[in-house]
C-alpha cells in the first residue's frame, strides 16, 4: 500500500502554492465583494496550465489525473482563488469526446461554465457569472450554448455564481446522463479539495493566533477550551484529506468507487470546512468578526460551498443508498 502523494504531485502542489500565493489572497476575495476582479482570474489560470490538467494531451491539456488536479485545487482553496478548478475538471470530463472544445477549455480561449439544473433557468452555478459558453444537461442530452446569466447578491464573490437561461444550444451527445453524473462526481471531489485547502488554512490561522494572543496572563491556545476547538477542527481536516485523496484517486484508478468516495468527500468537506471557519472566527473573538479580517472570507466560502453540487444531506443520502445497493459488501 502506498496511500501518499508521489514526488511529482508534491512538486506540483509546491508550485501551485507559490503561484496562488503570488497571484491572489483573501484580500482579493474581500475586494471582489465590493466589485473587484476575481483573482488570479481565468486568463492567469489558463496560462499556467491549470485549466487543462485533466484535458487530454492531444487536445492541448496535460493529460493528468484528477489527483494531479486535486492537489493544485487544494492550494487554490487555501487563498480563496477564483475561478474554481471545479469547472475545469467537470468540463474536461464532459468534453472528453469533443477535442476542439476541450482545447478551448485548456487554453482558456473560451470561458466555460457547467450549469446545474434546467438549461432554461439553472440553479446558481459556479463561475457562470463571467462565463461565455455553457454546458448543460437538456432532456438527457449534453448541450453547449450561449445564455443569459443572472447573478444574485454574492455571499462569496469568488464563486461567480449565476443562474443561466440558454439562448441557443447545440447537442454534443445524446444519452449523456451517465457522463453527466460522473462529471458532477468529479466536480464534487474538486470542490472538496478546494475546501480542504481552505479549511486547512483556516485552522492554521486560528492556531497561529491562539499562540500569540494573550488573555488572563497567558496564550489563549493554552486553555483547553480553545485548544480542543482547534484540535477538533484539525482532526476534521486531516480526515478530509484522506477522503479527498481517495476520491480523486478513485476517479481514474477505481471508477466503481468514485460515487461513494465523491459523496463521502463532499459531505465531509461541508461539515469540516464550516467547523474550521466558525472556529477561526471564535478563536479570534471580536477582531474575527470585522470586515477587515480574513476570517469571514473563509466563513463565506464555507457557507456557500457546503450547498453547491449537493449539500451534506444529499450526499449522506447518496452514501446510504449506495450502501443499500451493495457498496461496501464484505
Amino acid at each position, binding site marked *: *500500500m502506498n*496511500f501518499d502523494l508521489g514526488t511529482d504531485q508534491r512538486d506540483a502542489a509546491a508550485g501551485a502554492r507559490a503561484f496562488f500565493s503570488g497571484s491572489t489572497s483573501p484580500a482579493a476575495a474581500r475586494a471582489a465583494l465590493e466589485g473587484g476582479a476575481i483573482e488570479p482570474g481565468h486568463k492567469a489560470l489558463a496560462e499556467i496550465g491549470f485549466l487543462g490538467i485533466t484535458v487530454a494531451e492531444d487536445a492541448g491539456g496535460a493529460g493528468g489525473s484528477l489527483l494531479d488536479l486535486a492537489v493544485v485545487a487544494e492550494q487554490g482553496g487555501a487563498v480563496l482563488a477564483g475561478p474554481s478548478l471545479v469547472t475545469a475538471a467537470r468540463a474536461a470530463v464532459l468534453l472528453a469526446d469533443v477535442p476542439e472544445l476541450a482545447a478551448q477549455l485548456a487554453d482558456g480561449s473560451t470561458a466555460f461554465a457547467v450549469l446545474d439544473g434546467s438549461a432554461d433557468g439553472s440553479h446558481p452555478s459556479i463561475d457562470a457569472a463571467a462565463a461565455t459558453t455553457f454546458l448543460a444537461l437538456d432532456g438527457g442530452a449534453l448541450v453547449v450554448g450561449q445564455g443569459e446569466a443572472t447573478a444574485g447578491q454574492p455571499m462569496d464573490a469568488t464563486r461567480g455564481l449565476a443562474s443561466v437561461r440558454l439562448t441557443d444550444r447545440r447537442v454534443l451527445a445524446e444519452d449523456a446522463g451517465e457522463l453527466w453524473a460522473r462529471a458532477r462526481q468529479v466536480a464534487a471531489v474538486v470542490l472538496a479539495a478546494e475546501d480542504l485547502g481552505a479549511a486547512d488554512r483556516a485552522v492554521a490561522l486560528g492556531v497561529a493566533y*491562539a*499562540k500569540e494572543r494573550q488573555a488572563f496572563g*497567558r496564550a489563549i491556545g*493554552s486553555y483547553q477550551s480553545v485548544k480542543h476547538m482547534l484540535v477538533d477542527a484539525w482532526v476534521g481536516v486531516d480526515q478530509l484529506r484522506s477522503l479527498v485523496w481517495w476520491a480523486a484517486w478513485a476517479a481514474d484508478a477505481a471508477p466503481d468507487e468514485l460515487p461513494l468516495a465523491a459523496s463521502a468527500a463532499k459531505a465531509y468537506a461541508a461539515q469540516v470546512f464550516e467547523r474550521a471557519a466558525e472556529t477561526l472566527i471564535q478563536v479570534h473573538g471580536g477582531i474575527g468578526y470585522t470586515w477587515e479580517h480574513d476570517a469571514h472570507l473563509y466563513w463565506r466560502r464555507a457557507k456557500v460551498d457546503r450547498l453547491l453540487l449537493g449539500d451534506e444531506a444529499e*450526499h449522506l443520502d*447518496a*452514501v446510504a443508498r449506495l450502501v443499500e445497493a451493495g457498496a*461496501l459488501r464484505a
Partner: protein
Amino acid sequence: MDFDDTPEEAGYRAHVRGLLEQHAGELLHVSPGESIDPSTHQAEFRATQRVLAEAGLIGIPWPREHGGQGGTLVQQAIAGQEFARARIPTLINHIGLGMCGPTVIAHGSDDQKSRYLARLLRADDVWCQLFSEPASGSDLAALRTTAVRDGDDWVVNGQKVWTTLAHVADYGILLTRTDPERPKHAGLTMFVVDMHAPGVTVRPLRQMAGGAGFNEVFFDDVRIPDAERLGEPGEGWRVALTTLMNERVAIGGAGSDVGVPVETFAAHARERLPALDPDRQVLARQAVGRAVVASLATRYTGYRRFTVLSQGGLPGPEASAGKLAGTTAGRLVADAGVRLLGDDAVYAATADGDATWQRQQAYMPGLAIAGGTDQVLRNILGERVLGLPPEPRADKSGPFSGGTR
C-alpha cells in the same frame, strides 16, 4: 498511490494466510458479533497464541534474540489484518505483546529478558499493565502505590484499578512511587510483579456493558526482589513512557475500524433500512450516511499512517487522532446500528437474542476513556502536533508529598 500490497507485502500476506489455514483446527475462531471471554476459555486462548507463536506469527517486529521474528511493523499490521479476516479473537496476551514485552526489552536485565520474553510470546504467561489507580487515571504520575526498599526486596502497598486481564495474568508491569520527597514524575519506579505472589488480590469489576474484563488489584506488603526492577529507581516515568509509546503503536490503527467493521454495519443497514417506515428511512439514511462517511474517513486516514510505517517511519503523536476520530466514528456506527433495529432498539437484545448493536452502544463510553481519554488525546494533539502551549501546572516541581499533586 495505490492500495495494493507491494510484492513483498503480498508475499508475506499469502504466507500468513497459508499458516492460518494450515493451523485452522488448532485456533479459536469467533463468528461476527460474537465475543468469547478469555477468563472462561483461558486454555483455548493460550493454546491459540502458542500455535501462532510456533508458526512465527507473534512478536513479529521483536528482535530475534528475544524470540521475535526481526520483522517490520508493516508485517505485524498485515498479520493483524489476517487474524481479523480469519476471525481469530483478540490475543489473550495483547497487553503483554503490545506494551509489557517492549518495556522489558527496552529496560529489563538480560536475566529478565531470558526468563520472561519467550514465555510471554507463547502465552505461557499472560501479562497485565498495572498503571491506573483510583486517584490517578489521566494524571498517571499522581499515583500513590508505594514501594519501599527492604534489603534485597521492595515492599509494595497500594491499589491499582481498571487493570485489563489482571484476573488471568501471571505477571504485570507495575508503576510505583519510591520517593515521595521528589517531584511527582521523578519519584517513580517500575517493576515486574508476580501476580501470584502473596499479598496480591485481584477483584474483577463488572463493567457497564455487563462483562468483567478489567479489575481492581490490591497490594498488601507484596515483596518484589530488586532484580525485578525495570530501569533505575526514580526512572519509572521514562520507563512508562516507553510503554505508552508502544501502546500508540499497538492502537495506531493501520486502517482497521474501531468497533465493528464498516462492512458489517453496511450489511446491517441493507437488511434493516427497508423494514422501516418510509419517513423513517429518510432520516435513517442520514444517520447511516454519516456513520459510513466517518468510518471511511478514519479508515483511509489509517491507511496514510500505515503508509508511513511501510516506508520505515514511526507513528508520531498524530496517531492519537486515529483513536479520537475512530471513537467518534464508532459512536456514530453503534448509534445508527441500534436505531436501525426499530422497536428492538429499546431492549438489550433483539427478539431473536442478537445483542450485537446494543453491546457496541454500551461499549462506546468506555472506548472514549481507555488508552487515553478524548480530552487527554486532544491535549496531546494540541500541544505536540499543533504546537499550542500547555496549561501552566503547579504539580510538576515541588515534592509529591508537599501536597500540590
